[in-house]
């Protein structure tokens, strides 16, 4: 009897200790990442250009590069990242619960996600908008002719909400067929379950390449929404928010200053004051973020600036060949504009 009681008391105190320990272990995200030795990055499970693993498990994409840049700034090693593929519907829970440190997942910045779901978006790394893809054989040329159509969409996305807004505001009927993953929605569209497939315009061009006969599908001209993509972090850790935000900004600033992965070693010795500040020759901006002086040098050397990442993953040097368009820097006719490092 006595043993039983003792054992019970022991079990209870063990449980209590575990509960309190869990409550106390709320160290900063940067410290957790350093202690762990790698960054946990929430990525798209497979969207060419943004986040895609190859057959060897090597990830590439604009969002992937962003996580590699953060890892480089912290560890001086772009490979100290673990990419965790998340469906659109699971991504916010994964960030909220601490499963990932940063979510780089072609995610649209909205007020409900920021104010209602405990997230903070760190800065727009791609400006997009939602469109429709249809089968050629339907012989229509405008989204306004889609009344009565079946539309395949990925659930839990802004696409699903914009779709409802668009059809109802134009007083058109439609049938919504929502799938948990983009692949399932696309497959259902390809096999004829739906007349149209809707998602962000960039993804439409990317996903069209996966279809059985890409040329038998056209993308309609209407863009029905604005979709500013941004990486996101949890609320409540200002230091981590600043790090992720400024790695993003510095990628744009590096492009603006003409600093690339190829010429960064020359630029570090130049007299250009912008380059000297950004690369840590003057000032201690890196240290004020909780990183080292050469934080930006590290990731520019390893990953490159925003323009290099864009060209490699989405633009002229990729299979996708997407034009910079509004994603060009403000100095080149686009709207990408980052606060200065100074």
């Amino acid at each position, binding site marked *: 009897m006595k043993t039983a009681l003792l054992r019970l008391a022991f079990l209870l105190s063990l449980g209590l200790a575990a509960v309190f320990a869990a409550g106390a272990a709320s160290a900063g995200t940067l410290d957790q990442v350093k202690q762990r030795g790698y960054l946990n990055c929430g990525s798209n499970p497979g969207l060419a250009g943004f986040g895609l693993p190859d057959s060897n498990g090597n990830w590439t994409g604009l969002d992937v590069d962003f996580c590699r840049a953060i890892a480089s700034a912290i560890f001086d090693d772009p490979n100290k990242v673990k990419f965790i593929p998340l469906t659109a519907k699971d991504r916010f829970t994964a960030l909220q619960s601490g499963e990932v440190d940063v979510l780089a997942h072609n995610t649209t910045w909205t007020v409900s996600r920021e104010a*209602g779901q405990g997230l903070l978006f760190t800065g727009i790394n791609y400006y997009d908008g939602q469109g429709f893809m249809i089968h050629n054989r339907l012989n229509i040329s405008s989204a306004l002719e889609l009344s*009565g159509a079946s539309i395949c969409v990925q659930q839990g996305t802004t696409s*699903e909400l914009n779709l409802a807004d668009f059809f109802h505001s134009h007083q058109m009927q439609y049938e919504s067929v929502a799938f948990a993953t983009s692949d399932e929605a696309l497959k259902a569209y390809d096999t004829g379950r739906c007349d149209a497939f809707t998602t962000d315009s960039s993804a439409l061009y990317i996903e069209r390449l996966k279809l059985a006969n890409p040329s038998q599908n056209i993308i309609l001209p209407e863009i029905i929404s604005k979709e500013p993509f941004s990486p996101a972090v949890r*609320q409540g850790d200002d230091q981590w928010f600043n790090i992720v935000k400024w790695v993003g900004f510095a990628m744009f600033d590096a492009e603006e200053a003409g600093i690339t992965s190829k010429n960064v070693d020359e630029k570090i010795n130049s007299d250009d004051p912008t380059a000297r500040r950004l690369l840590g020759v003057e000032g201690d901006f890196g240290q004020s973020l909780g990183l080292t002086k050469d934080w930006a040098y590290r990731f520019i050397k390893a990953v490159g600036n925003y323009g290099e990442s864009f060209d490699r993953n989405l633009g002229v040097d990729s299979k996708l060949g997407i034009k910079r368009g509004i994603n060009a820097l403000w100095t080149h006719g686009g709207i990408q504009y980052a606060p200065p490092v100074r």
Partner: protein
Amino acid sequence: MATLSGAFRRGNAAHSALVQIAFVLGLGFLVYEAATLALAHMREHHIPTDFGFWNERAGFDIDPHLIAYSFTSTYGRAFFVGLINTLVVSAVGVVFASLLGFAIGAARLSTNLVIAKFAGFYIEAFRNVPLLLQILFWYNGVLKALPAPRASLAFPGHIFLNDRGLFMPAPTLSPLGLSLPVFHGFNFIGGMKLSPEFVALTLSLVLYTATFIAEIVRAGIAGVPKGQGEAAAALGLNAVQARKFVIVPQALRLIVPPLTSQYLNLFKNSSLAVFIGYPDLVQVFAGTVLNQTGAAVPVITVTMAVYLFVSLLGSLAMNLFNRRIAGAVH
């Protein structure tokens, strides 16, 4: 734990009660502390902890919806749309799985060797393939191969089949009459429609669960002692009468309890709907609503509570049935 149960047996009632009370209090305290901590943590990080979202506008559409619903309806309404879709698939599944299961179970015991072998083959084939694979097979392999709406297969009585579903005439209340499906624009409108998602899910649940029901039925009938049949014959009952009045009533006592758990399995398995886009409770509520609101803890709690509640209700109903019908034989 062996020591604990030993103590319960050895110790007197007072000691036993004391240990149990201490355990329950301790457990309650732990749960309370954990919940308080979790809530504080969630509030600190602005993660929703309550049902404040329930009456907010959902903003997305759901097809099919058996109660009035549009994108201006609330998240709460979306919950009921998903719940009803789950209950409909489950109810239709239970009815057809029972009919098929009883038929196959009886066929398995048939003295006709061809029928018995065929029933055995069906059971082995469908019982041993994972349900999810079967759902994906029917959805992607079979139903997607149907023709496009313009080239629909037409059947007598205004019934049309295409890769968007099965379209049938439906009765209308006001005015009293019949609504016929008519091809217009992209697809048929009017009448009643069964979507490919619904058909694939129901068909898979029926074919899969029926195999287990068939085995239960066979075991139940085989479990009635052979002497009962001989005794019935000795009393002058013919084969049909013997089955109806002697064998089946006794077999039911063996069949109903495991049958209950197959019904509950079918109900729970219907949540695999999420893989083919049928808007059941899990897909709509634990999927889209969770994602749009971020209220993971309230949403998952409610979803689990629903499955628990409906399962308990199902068990209760089957137990009452067991007591009334099967338990009447002594």
